[in-house]
């Protein structure tokens, strides 16, 4: 081969290696620029306001035996107020990843919605936060759907929330160039998989394929004749028609299962133990099993009972701990997600050092969360495959902020380099990964 031809062929080959997307054995197409650590991320907001004193500092004993190592007993004055979940007989979550004991939500009001928005956008909120509106900055869902290559449908991004209110706004932002076209599928299962949900959605008229074709033709004619302003410009994310059919069938199947009692005790621990956090996580697990989404965010909120009852707060911490471990166990037992998922858990904020003057039946004072130092102290846990996430690693000194989660997720899914400069100020938690 002549020298010039050899050099030309070498150049072409190199260019092809750099520029052409490649297929992984799984069949998924990647852009060459995005190296992923894993193909799925589940972010569990261990939310409602958990103070480090009750979680990683174990002031009242180890209320999180599924997450934290240690056998410290529960304080004797509240132990009779705890409705214990089954004991952990296996390895703790902290041994399966990296634990940041002194994470911080450094700025912004320590309110639930603002702190959720901070965790899900990677940007601290200000005092002028409007809880009746979508967040100002792009959510992790929008960043993922806009900048991941190739772009993924809404069926790959889910936001599952414990309660309604402002949380329904967190599936997309008002930021220019983002918005509902890049948002996540949102569902609050407590309102859908309920008696009211079943009464209003559980008796659906089913159309056959021929009827669906007629509907599509007629609706298509109407839409073509009406200058459509609905898709994107209105207040909704939009699934593809095929995905809509799938999701509708999935919801209808959930109604069937709920009517058959399968939601009463899905984890086999006794129906009386479940709170809304556990039911919410159970639904997130169903989404994981059904869709194997690349990005799912689920939150818990029941520990917020701490505003009025400390002992019930402690009780709900150990239930949230159980739910988190069950979520991780489900991921590890779901083909397509097992060994290819990184789970991140973090409370959205802590709670005040001082009580609010309300005492429960066990003599414990209730706790609010109003921007003091304790309400900014949280923990974070990153779990993942042993070759990817550093195992059994603990940072006991202050390290990491709640705005670091979004850039870390972007890095895990391989699109962090494609994000516009200046949008995020947080850091990738690189020390968690090999």
């Amino acid at each position: 081969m002549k020298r010039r031809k050899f050099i030309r062929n070498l150049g072409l080959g190199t260019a092809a290696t750099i520029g052409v997307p490649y297929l992984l054995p799984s069949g998924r197409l990647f852009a060459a620029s995005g190296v992923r650590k894993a193909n799925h991320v589940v972010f569990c907001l261990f939310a409602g306001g958990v103070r480090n004193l009750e979680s990683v500092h174990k002031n009242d004993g180890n209320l999180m035996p599924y997450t934290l190592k240690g056998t410290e007993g529960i304080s004797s004055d509240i132990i009779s107020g705890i409705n214990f979940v089954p004991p952990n007989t296996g390895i703790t979550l902290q041994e399966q990843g990296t634990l940041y004991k002194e994470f911080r939500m450094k700025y912004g009001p320590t309110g639930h919605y603002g702190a959720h928005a901070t965790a899900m956008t990677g940007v601290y909120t200000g005092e002028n936060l409007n809880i009746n509106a979508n967040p100002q900055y792009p959510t992790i869902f929008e960043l993922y759907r806009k900048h991941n290559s190739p772009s993924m449908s809404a069926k790959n991004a889910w936001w599952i929330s414990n309660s309604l209110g402002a949380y329904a706004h967190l599936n997309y932002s008002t930021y220019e160039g983002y918005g509902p076209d890049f948002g996540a599928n949102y569902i609050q299962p407590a309102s859908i998989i309920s008696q009211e949900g079943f009464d209003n959605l559980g008796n659906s008229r089913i159309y056959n394929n021929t009827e669906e074709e007629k509907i599509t033709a007629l609706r298509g004619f109407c839409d073509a004749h009406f200058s459509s302003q609905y898709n994107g410009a209105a207040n909704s994310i939009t699934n593809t028609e095929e995905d809509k059919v799938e999701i509708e069938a999935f919801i209808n199947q959930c109604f069937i299962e709920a009517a058959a009692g399968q939601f009463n005790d899905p984890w086999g621990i006794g129906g009386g133990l479940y709170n809304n956090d556990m039911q919410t996580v159970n639904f997130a697990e169903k989404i994981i099993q059904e869709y194997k989404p690349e990005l799912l965010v689920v939150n818990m909120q029941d520990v917020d009972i701490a505003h009025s009852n400390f002992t019930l707060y402690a009780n709900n911490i150990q239930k949230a701990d159980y739910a988190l471990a069950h979520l991780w166990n489900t991921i590890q037992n779901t083909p397509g997600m097992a060994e290819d998922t990184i789970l991140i858990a973090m409370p959205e904020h802590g709670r005040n050092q001082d009580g609010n003057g309300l005492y429960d039946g066990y003599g414990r004072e209730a706790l609010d969360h109003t921007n003091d130092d304790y309400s900014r102290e949280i923990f974070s846990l990153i779990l993942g495959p042993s070759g990817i996430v550093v195992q059994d690693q603990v940072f006991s000194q202050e390290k990491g902020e709640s705005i670091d989660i979004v850039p870390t997720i972007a890095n895990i899914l391989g699109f962090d380099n494609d994000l516009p400069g200046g949008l995020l100020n947080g850091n990738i938690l690189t020390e968690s990964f090999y």
Partner: protein
Amino acid sequence: MKKLIFIFSVLLLFSCKKEKKITYQLNDVTIENNSANKDHLKSTIEFISIAYSDIFGTVVSTNKLAELSQIYKAFGDKKLIEQMVIKNFLNEPSTQIPQIDRSSTSTINSFVQNVYTKLYNRTPDEYELWFISNMIENDTDLTSELIYFSLMTANEYRYY
């Protein structure tokens, strides 16, 4: 000579006549951009209340409205949840959807006009009237329920 006179006479008889002036007239039809007068998105409560009223011919109860509003808020894909809500409405035995009288073009047109007036609060333009009436005439399986569902889940129904 006689032959020439005969030929000339024949040509005279069948020669070109002066063309009559005929003027064709068209009836005026209204075809317009239907979004021009509809740029207000219905609120959740408005959408549910109007849809219920359009299907059942009565006002939705406060409890039912509260339940449906909560379900609506609890779901991200609003178009999908609207479709699911309306499908459930349509499966109730107490729906008040008129049947199509297919006895003549006139009765079919009348049905289409009434549907547009009820659901879109306007009369259909000539093209819409022709298109949907033609669909109904050519497809006996196209029921009034399918037409209602299609129009109620189209974009225009979301606006007023």
